[in-house]
């Protein structure tokens, strides 16, 4: 589904990613772990071609098509979603209206209003998001936890083929992490994929994943299964840092 080949990415003058290779097949959940500054968020932003980052080398293939240089909205319409570490606030646009508009743009079809509302309420209930929150301005005055749950709500409503979750678990209490995990489980099926980016292992206690990649200094230094995450939890990244 997604293949990243030998990707080098800069943020301004600074070289962040130094040759990333990653392959995600449909039906899989992948995790990228790594210490702060290792390039995790850059990887997510590079997949969605955030113009703040410059690709120097390599390519990104999604469902057989080269999306390396596509615009962010074109990539989103192909079915790639990203949950933001710090979601933006949009005053004057309600969560419900925002999602209705986004759904229309992603699918290219008119949204059936009543069906959409029912679906939105159903997902909001599952994620313990109050119905009145759906009529509030997007992310304005939301707590950290509310913002993260709202990102998961967006993922469920927009139903992408690949969901990239950038630090969605960070800063959340145990209950909120469980809710987020539940959201991911609801989303997950044999036809889609998930890429979780995190610096800690908490979310992996309530979620079964297929692959864990360790990212250090812009390179994936080790790939393993769920046990690798346990090892990191015990020993930290020290072993994988350059001497």
């Amino acid at each position, binding site marked *: 589904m997604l293949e990243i080949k030998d990707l080098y990415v800069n943020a301004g003058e600074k070289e962040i990613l130094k040759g990333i290779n990653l392959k995600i097949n449909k039906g899989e959940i992948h995790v990228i772990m790594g210490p702060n500054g290792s390039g995790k968020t850059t990887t997510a932003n590079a997949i969605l071609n955030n113009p703040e980052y410059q690709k120097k080398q390599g390519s990104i293939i999604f469902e057989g098509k080269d999306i390396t240089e596509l615009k962010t909205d074109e990539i989103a319409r192909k079915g790639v979603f990203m949950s933001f570490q710090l979601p*933006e606030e*949009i005053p*004057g646009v309600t969560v419900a209206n925002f999602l209705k508009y986004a759904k229309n743009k992603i699918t290219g079809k008119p949204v059936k209003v009543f069906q959409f509302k029912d679906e939105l309420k159903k997902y909001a209930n599952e994620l313990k998001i109050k119905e009145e929150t759906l009529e509030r301005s997007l992310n304005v005055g939301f707590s950290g936890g509310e913002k993260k749950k709202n990102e998961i709500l967006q993922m469920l409503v927009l139903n992408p083929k690949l969901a990239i979750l950038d630090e969605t678990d960070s800063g959340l209490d145990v209950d909120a992490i469980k809710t987020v995990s539940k959201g991911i489980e609801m989303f997950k099926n044999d036809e889609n994929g998930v890429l979780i980016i995190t610096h800690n292992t908490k979310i992996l206690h309530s979620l079964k994943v297929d692959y864990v990649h360790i990212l250090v200094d812009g390179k994936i230094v080790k790939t393993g299964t769920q046990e690798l995450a346990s090892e990191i939890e015990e020993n930290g990244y020290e072993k994988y840092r350059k001497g």
Partner: protein
Amino acid sequence: MSKTQIEDINRNIYDIKNKDEYDYKIQKGLTKEIIEELSKQKQDPDWMRELRLKALDVYNKLELPTWGPDLSELNMDEIATYVRPKTKMSNNWDDVPDDIKETFDKLGIPEAEKTSLAGVGAQYDSEVVYHSMKEELIKQGVIYTDMETAVHEYPELVKEHFMKCVPVHDHKFVALHGAVWSGGSFVYVPKGVKVDIPLQSYFRLNSPESGQFEHTLIIVDEGASLHFIEGCSAPKYNKVNLHAGCVELYVKENSYLRYSTIENWSKNMLNLNTKKAIVGKNAQVDWVSGSFGSKISMLYPMSILNGEGSKTEFTGISFAGKGQNLDNGFKVVHNAKNTSSVVNAKSISKDGGTCTYRSLVRISENAKNSKSVVSCESLMLDDISKSDTIPVNDIRTDEVEFSHEAKIGKISDKTIFYLMSRGMSEEDAKAMIVRGFAYPISKELPVEYAVEMNNLINLELEGAIG
């Protein structure tokens, strides 16, 4: 994908020009003879002819304002101040000539009258061509008619109030207005009558190199209430057109008036309009204003809170694109105890447009225990646009609560990226941010106007076509 920049947006319906047909167009310029002729054409009573001539005198003595946008391109010798359309005032749309009717049809005026208004007035160039109001309001004694009819049919009421709230010596363009005014609406709501559904007047300037100088006079008597809406538009010509209207509002004891405006003049228009309200004891006037068109706008509605416990709220938005300089704002004078004012002003500038918020808050010595809360926020869509805030606060007593908050912002790349990651193009993303920014204003408008405002925002933001 290559992008083609277009210089000017297609304002579609607003830009439909009708042939410049008229029954009578006065010669260009401004002389005593021209004013005499205009007065004769309009069959003014003597007092009105004298008022016009006195105003002309004041106009000739006053200087152009020394502040604000540059008005030097305005040459009154090039402007015809009176253009009478080829029709008589009617209360039946069927009597309105086809080309004029078609214009108002496209602007949705007759449709709005059927669905959501209690009365409608429509002015084409210098004269009102249509005026009508629901029967039940007529029975309740509500008067809603064109200004000329009011001058002849309600002489005492008009004479007592006409240019008393806004005197001719207020500034140069008020003096000009006094000399050449034509058209506009007159409304009188008797004591205790609540008009629940809005009245609306629509002003359309079709004739090139001309001016529109309509006079709106509204009296809301004790304990009465009214919502009045004015809409304005014009097709674009290469030479400047001038709009110098005047709005006088008398809001008597315990009454309520909401005055809403959607202004979408063409971008060759100089909009030098004057609006003022005198507010009585425990009465309230609310202004809602959307300013989109015009090349230059200088517009500062004013509330004079003369009665104890009187209130005013101003909610306004300006949107300046390429070549536009919108110098808008609000003035309030607190002249009695326990008065309050709330201002919520927003502006959006793009493609080098300039928005200035200019305001005056005066709280006089006898306005103890009064309150004024001012908030203004500007949004700039690029690095070449300008935004400025010029508040004057003149507070002469300590026993007041006053706050002024100003914010100037830009759309961040991060926000655009966030929205694009949800499948929206860059233009869609910007339009969504701007609609959200404008929402606190658009929600104050009647729903069809909120829709029109969103359409205007979308039109304005269609700067690039794929």
